[in-house]
């Protein structure tokens, strides 16, 4: 099979999955009872209620309701957010930018650090660095994000006061324009390095919280796949060619060990998305995650569903991209299918 066909096939599955997710989301909106509740006011007559139901097609059978609902979603009609007191679509973008800034910076750190750490440990199997990495990654997997964040908060904010919480200093925020809503980018666009430093400064604690878990996952995968690759014949063959160990590792073992790691990197993006809910609550980061948490507490269904739908689609697209990278890295996948 050609790589093109492989990608095409993945692209064809994508809408099926998105429809599947949307069905689940739709089902969730109906599990908690009719969504009519949002529009009800005290003292409405039975006729008025029925009229409302008709207006929002709530008297139709569920499949028909789903079609109306999905049509609404496709035209950007995501409903009214009670928490933000505005249509969901209006509030979405600036909050998305905040979450993305956090997630992407954590992802960058996690990928670089995770791959490096995993390579370092895997090449020194069963020696001290390997054992330390093992401890690091297992505790990473077992670490409750909310607790780790609170510990960082207690130490670095309450006691040491080294790092701030929130997303930026209000004065500095006011001093520059925000065309992208990614503060680091905005500050660079404005050429204001003070603002850039401030944006980075605010990123440190939440990004460290999120990055720790993701780094642990990636390092662990990288380590074990490297250990596996180092036992393959081609590694010995590379040594037998006279390549120094550095090149055996760099050109041969690591390249192949990265292949399974790439999948894990894709999956760890999901970890970052869901972790952002907790990190944003604790560090008062004005992103999607915190909005989601507030909405959950206040039963703001429209926001919750929009958020679930959006993160799932984002997660799917990221993993599709990862699959494509994977296919390029490992031609055998494509042929083996």
């Amino acid at each position, binding site marked *: 099979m050609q790589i093109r066909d492989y990608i095409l096939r993945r692209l064809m599955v994508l809408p099926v999955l998105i429809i599947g997710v949307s069905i689940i989301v739709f089902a969730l909106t109906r599990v908690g009872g009719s969504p009519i509740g949002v529009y009800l006011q005290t003292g409405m007559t039975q006729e008025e209620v029925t009229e409302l139901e008709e207006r929002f097609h709530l008297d139709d059978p569920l499949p028909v309701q789903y079609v109306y609902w999905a049509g609404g979603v496709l035209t950007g009609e995501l409903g009214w957010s009670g928490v933000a007191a505005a249509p969901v679509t209006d509030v979405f973008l600036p909050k998305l930018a905040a979450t993305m800034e956090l997630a992407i910076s954590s992802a960058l750190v996690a990928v670089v650090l995770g791959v490096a750490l995993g390579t370092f440990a895997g090449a020194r199997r069963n020696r001290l660095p390997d054992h330390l990495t093992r401890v690091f990654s297992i505790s990473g997997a077992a670490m409750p994000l909310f607790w780790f964040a609170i510990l960082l908060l207690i130490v670095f904010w309450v006691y040491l006061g080294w790092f701030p919480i929130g997303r930026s200093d209000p004065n500095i925020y006011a001093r520059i324009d925000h065309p992208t809503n990614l503060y680091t980018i905005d500050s660079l666009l404005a050429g204001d390095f003070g603002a850039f430093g401030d944006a980075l400064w605010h990123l440190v604690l939440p990004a460290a919280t999120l990055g720790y878990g993701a780094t642990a996952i990636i390092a662990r995968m990288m380590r074990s796949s490297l250990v596996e690759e180092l036992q393959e014949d081609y590694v010995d063959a590379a040594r037998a060619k*006279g390549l120094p160990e550095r*090149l055996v590792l760099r050109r041969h073992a690591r390249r192949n060990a990265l292949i399974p790691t790439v999948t894990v990197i894709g999956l760890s993006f999901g970890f970052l998305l869901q972790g952002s809910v907790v990190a944003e609550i604790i560090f008062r980061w004005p992103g999607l995650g915190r909005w989601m948490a507030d909405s959950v507490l206040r039963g703001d269904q429209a926001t919750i569903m929009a958020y679930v739908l959006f993160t799932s689609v984002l997660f799917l697209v990221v993993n599709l991209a990862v699959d494509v990278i994977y296919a390029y890295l490992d031609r*055998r996948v494509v042929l083996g299918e």
Partner: protein
Amino acid sequence: MSLIDGIGPEAAPRARPAVASVKDLRVHFRSKVGVVHAVDGVSFDIGDGETLGLVGETGCGKSVTARSFLDLVPMPPGIKAGGAIEFRPHHTCPSCDGAGCETCDDSGRQAEPCDSCNGGGCEGCGHTGQRTIDLLEISEKDLQTIRGNRIAMIFQDPGKALNPALPIGEQVAEVFFQHRADDLLADAGASDGTEALGGALIQRKAGLKTSRIEDFLLSLPPLRGQRTKLMAAVQTRVAEALAETQIPNPRKVMDRYPHELSGGMRQRVMIAQAIACDPDLLIADEPTTALDVTVQARILELIRDLQQRHRTSVLYISHDLSLVKEVCDRVAVMYAGRIVESAATSSIFTDPHHPYTQGLLAAIPSANHERGRLVAIPGNVPELIDPPAACRFAGRCPYEAPACTAHDPLATTITANHEVACFIHHAPAGDEERPTWDRKVR
């Protein structure tokens, strides 16, 4: 051609120095239940231009022996328990330029002189006057200049020995980058670093020493020309090497990934890579086991042909006696970490002395055997955990005598070039009078 025609035991003169001598090699492995003596006192010579077959069944230590040449036995769990592998690099005879003359015994090759005595003979070279390297002692860095350059190796499964994620061309090219960087630079016309930065960079590139940033610099216009030239030079060399192993359309094969080639083609690529630097010694570890018979025959032909043209010495590892008969001048039979018998190929097959060799030969089904009457060696190979000082074949041997379990037989020369490690062939009758030479067991 046939290597064995008319070559009797006496007809293989070994006056010229051996290209490699294994001396009392011991490689052990630590395991849960104890120390496994996988290779336990193996000694043999490989003459220059000779093909030596190392035969034995699963677990006899033949592959470990072969891998020890290039320090490819994983340590731990492996332990270098002793012995030496002496390697004597050769070069083309200067007086006849490879044509064959008096000084080089018509072989066209000559051993390099010893560094310290320049051919005079001293302690370091064992009074042979030849440069002698103990492969077990030298540093990793020195070993890297020998691996793939003076000693090359072919592996059993070419499907696994090639990196699945790199195109064939890049993998073969590595050998040239690693060992022939200067030649490549000369080919590319960049040998005398014309520009300071560019010259240095391209030299680093030729030695595979560039970092990502340097690679990026090289891809920029001012340096790109030189880089392209270098790449063209290496591609020409790779294509030549592949063509040498009769790969059709080598330029096309270079862009392929290993999984896109057939098993036979992959093994040709491995061979091309191994002989690229014209090594003195080629170690072939069961090179045809994973291949079909008709393909196997092609590969054997190829190895034989290359061996003759390049006058490379070959250490051929196999479990298959009939294969070894085809390609080898001399055969050493291994059993349970020891060499039990070694002789010229024809004498092993016509006049085997060790009961194990006899058993192995008789176990091959042939037209002469009545069905159901194959000679099977009873029992299993012994576990090699702290073995006692006794013959390792005791317990399975039809000729076993009390001495066999009490003493450890040493290899003894019975005729010229024929050595056997067994009591029954050199002992007079009567158990009491059996020789009692013991091998030192460590």
